[in-house]
């Protein structure tokens, strides 16, 4: 289950996620954020309790797509379990270097 709320401000698309990111739900998210638009995409993960490697791969793809169009992705407030998994596969480092991960703690 993944609930996606989108809120668009000038230049920023804010996406608040609630639920789990995995093979089943990542496609939903990719559909929502796939279309070109604002400069900055904010993904608020504070309501995401679970992300597996398929979900992480999806986030990485979104980051790469967004960057190719000259935009940036910000991942906000991952829960501790999720942050740990991101750190284990090195995704946190990659996203930090690309300026995508901020505000680990709530």
């Amino acid at each position, binding site marked *: 289950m993944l609930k996606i709320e989108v809120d668009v401000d000038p230049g920023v698309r804010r996406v608040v996620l609630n639920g789990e990111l995995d*093979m*089943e739900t990542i496609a939903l998210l990719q559909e929502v954020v796939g279309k070109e638009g604002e400069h900055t995409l904010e993904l608020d993960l504070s309501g995401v309790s*679970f992300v*597996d490697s398929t979900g*992480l791969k999806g986030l990485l793809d979104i980051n790469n797509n967004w960057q190719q169009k000259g935009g940036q992705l910000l991942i906000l407030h991952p829960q501790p379990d999720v*942050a740990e998994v991101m750190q284990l*596969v090195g995704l946190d480092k990659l996203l930090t270097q690309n300026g995508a991960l901020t505000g680990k703690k709530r």
Partner: protein
Amino acid sequence: MRRCYECAQKEPASPCVECKDFIQQGPLRRVPSPPTRILLEDEQGKKYPADILALNTTEFGLETEAPVPGRYVIRLQENLWIEVAGVPLKGKNNVHVFDILSVHRKQGTARRLNNEVYQLLAGSTGQLVAEISQHLPEHLQDLVREKLLAELEKSELISAIRVGKVLKYEGGRFRCLSGQADMDLPMEEAEKLMRQATRHAEHRREVIISADGQKVFDFHGVPFDHRSGGLLAFDITEVIEKEKKIHRQEMEAYREAMSAVTGGRLHLVNSEETEKLLSEGVEMAKGEAMQAHDIPKARQVLRESLPSIFSHRQHAIALCLSEAQANVLKHAGGGCWQARQAGNLVRIIVQDRGSGIKTSELARATLMQHYSTKNSMGCGFTLMLYYADSLYLNTGPSGTTLVLDFGNVRTDRLDLEK
């Protein structure tokens, strides 16, 4: 692998190159002095300078600002480039191990830097080839040797070729030039091959099984002119036997190596051992892995059935279950799972009836970060190796079974929340 995390915190100043956990020490390890400067190029063409601190035939230890994980290309010459992937769990600060994914040469692609094993074997093979080609007309010797060596290089089992025979073919007749005289060859097949080789004026190669099915021959036909040529015949029956034996030994070696490099966590098990693992304890929950929706469903079922003494391990167990199910969906098209409890142990079992993991892919598929034969991140196994206390893998052409054990005590782990 998590030692690198610990080391980065406890001894940030100690160099990775001197660490035995960094790049496996052994005769193939080299430490260039001074470090060799190269360029890493990412998929977008962005370039990062890097210093080779150490290397062996399958990995580099690099000091670089290039983000890890990530895939990069190292261009050495116009016709020689290497694809590498950074391993986040090995190394610290700006120093990381980069796995060699493939080496591209003009002649083809390899999985490692240099086939040193072949170099060792080439000595005796070169001699054999020289011996059997010395009776050929002089102007053909070099050509035949070159062709033979090229053919032999393709076989990793050249050391097993002990029996060879060289015959001259002329106008439908054979004359033995050298080699083992009492070797019986299927002459009808040999003549057919030589007729084709001389008619088309090109090198022909065929593997022929004798009429009684007992012997296997590797035939090379080399034309001299339109009616004569040379036939090189090898009895490779032994080679095939040896191939089977090597496969068994390989599996044994893999078992030991996998267990060692994973700190005793990953075990390759046979069907008998698997049956035992599957029968221990009491079933708590089970389900399918046939479509993407089965993955969240399985987590839900698992959470509901998990006894409270395991609640602090729930995330780890659920994640590993999802990763194992995703593997089954991606690689085998579907399978099933179950969770069992045996005392203070939760055991997750995920099975499929797919075609198994090939021996040649096994180490990469399970141990190498970001290695995936499918388009995914390839880190599912890394996560399972981190979160599960023990893993048991049984794989073969009729399917794969993965067993993951979780104790109710969280094993010694690093505090990743700095």
